[in-house]
């Protein structure tokens, strides 16, 4: 079955049909079917070693699939070498040519395709592209005279100037510091809207994937386990793996009672719902209950608030992590073990902050509870 990211798209820019790639005993990419329509910003998200880079390299042409078919705009490109494919890649460590200056790096692709291009035309296009990545006037700079962020932009310019059908980005922001990474996330998004071509980004950083792309494909051990909008992945994870990888989650094990209820190992019965499009586990089968930390209400014991929710428990705070906009508490509950609770500054305005060892009550609603089959 093919994961169609958007229905009604004309020919997809990229299509994988049952593609696998092994390295010895390791299955880097395992029977992947995916269709990526034109003009979107798609992220492939997954832990290190799950096959993201291999997936990207098969689009670029640096790896060939062992089985299955890779299509670019409807044509199979299996066996077509990288230099004949209309896609460009931004490498993780940029891979800028150290013996060429910025202008020669950026003009490299054009010169390969059109060897007779006039100096003037080339200079104009290089200049335009440098402005697009906000590095005007950097033509004569040497690569080693530029900071990491600037090199990143040169790498982007070097790819975008060729007006490829698809731009591939392999963990493009991993080497940048936090603030610069935020800026580049916004810039990349703007750039994608401006040029209108398909961006395919792979990353292990969920924040990066969620904040930039319109579609996220979550990968696990060479397979795509869920495809959807960032909101979908966050709110309607299809499995505990997704719920765990995208955002933070608390998991409690139990036995399904059927009809949207689970009997936890401590004996309490929790009510909840299955994610959209997923069946509830059948009665008497093992189940996992998932609750997001920010959906849990926390209040001092005895105070109203938390105990008004469908589910509530009492316990002690064992740890407090101040994150600026939020505070994370680890609350030790006898029945559940350690529960992660996130409290925003806004809610703290009414509840106050809590100290380690303080007795608190936590509670959440039925709507905030997702029930999965435990596999």
């Amino acid at each position, binding site marked *: 079955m093919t994961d169609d990211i958007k229905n009604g798209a004309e020919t997809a820019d990229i299509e994988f049909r049952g593609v696998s790639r092994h390295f010895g005993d390791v299955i880097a990419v395992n029977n992947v079917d995916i269709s990526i329509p034109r003009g979107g910003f798609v992220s492939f998200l997954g832990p290190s070693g799950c096959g993201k880079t291999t997936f990207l390299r098969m689009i670029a042409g640096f790896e060939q699939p062992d089985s299955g078919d890779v299509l670019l705009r409807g044509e199979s490109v299996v066996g077509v070498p990288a230099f004949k494919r209309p896609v460009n890649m931004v490498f993780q460590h940029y891979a800028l040519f150290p013996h060429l200056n910025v202008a020669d790096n950026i003009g490299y692709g054009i010169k*390969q395709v059109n060897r007779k291009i006039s100096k003037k035309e080339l200079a104009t296009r290089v200049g335009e592209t440098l402005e697009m990545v906000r590095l005007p006037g950097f033509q004569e700079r040497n690569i080693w005279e530029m900071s990491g962020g600037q090199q990143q932009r040169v790498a982007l310019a070097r790819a975008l100037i060729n007006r490829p059908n698809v731009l591939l980005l392999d963990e493009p922001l991993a080497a940048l510091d936090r603030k610069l990474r935020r800026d580049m996330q916004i810039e990349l998004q703007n750039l994608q809207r401006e040029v209108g071509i398909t961006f395919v980004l792979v990353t292990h950083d969920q924040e990066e994937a969620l904040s930039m792309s319109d579609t996220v494909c979550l990968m696990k051990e060479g397979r795509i386990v869920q495809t959807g909008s960032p909101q979908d992945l966050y709110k309607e994870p299809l499995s505990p793996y997704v719920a765990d990888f995208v955002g933070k989650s608390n998991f409690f094990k139990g036995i399904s009672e059927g009809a949207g209820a689970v009997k936890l190992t401590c004996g309490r019965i929790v009510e909840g719902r299955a994610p959209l499009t997923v069946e509830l586990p059948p009665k008497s089968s093992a189940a996992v209950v998932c609750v997001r930390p920010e959906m849990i209400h926390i209040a001092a014991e005895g105070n109203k608030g938390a105990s008004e929710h469908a589910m509530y428990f009492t316990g002690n705070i064992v740890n407090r992590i101040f994150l600026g906009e939020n505070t994370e508490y680890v609350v030790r509950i006898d029945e559940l073990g350690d529960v992660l609770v996130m409290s925003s500054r806004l809610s703290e305005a009414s509840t106050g902050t809590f100290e380690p060892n303080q007795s608190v009550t936590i509670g959440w609603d039925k709507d905030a509870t997702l029930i999965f089959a435990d596999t």
Partner: protein
Amino acid sequence: MKIYAIFVYAFLYLPIALVIFFSFNAGNYALDFQGFSTRWYAKALTNPFIMDALWFSVKVAALSAVMSTVFGTMAALALQRLSGWKRTFYDALIYVSIMVPGIVIAIATLIALVTVFKFLNPFLEVLAPLFDGQAPKLSLGFVSLVAAHSLFTMSLVVVIVRARLSGMDRTLIEASEDLYASPFRTFVQVTLPQLMPGILAAFLLSFTFSFDDFIISFFVAGPNTTLPVYIFSSIRRGITPEVNVIGTVVLVGSLILLFSAQFLSTMGKGKKRSASKDDSDDS
């Protein structure tokens, strides 16, 4: 500095300093200083035997350096593609050929060449009518010396270029292919410029090796005289300031070449290091 260190340095450099000093001797004997003069420079540089030997040495060094650089670079590129035991095996062969003493190489080359010539020359007799009855004859000389020097210095080139190659960022090649450059153009536009400092350094080292070499030349050059061979034979007739002049000139020339080699081989690396140093700060 410790006193013995001073002795070590003195022992190393005093003789060299003396050679330079006595090359400006006005007197007729190498070690009998009669005042400053450059008259032995004029004499040495107009001595046809010296100039012939010098010219012969330069020709041999230049040609063998070119050959060993070209073939050594090709060999290094090919070795890079091998893997497993094959690579270990051929690598070991290269290192062994560097470590074998020059005298062994010299004798082995001499015997090999003489044997081959002995085998081939009767066949060349057949061609006699084509050359007015005077059949071409293979013998020791310029070509055999160039061949011997090329073979030996090729191992040096392989080792130097290999070091450069393994330090090279492989993703640069992929980046070039991603930007529509064919493998050949990638080689010319990316791989070769990346290797160039190493290749040049290897060339200069090969040149100096061949130019300085005495042992192999002595055995394989046949009737021709290289500069070191000439110096050796002239010393047997007594040391004149002329020999000091040659020594000084060769020393200066070799130093210039060695320093350029050193400079070239570190130049590219320095750039690379500073390029990756400040990865995380923007201006």
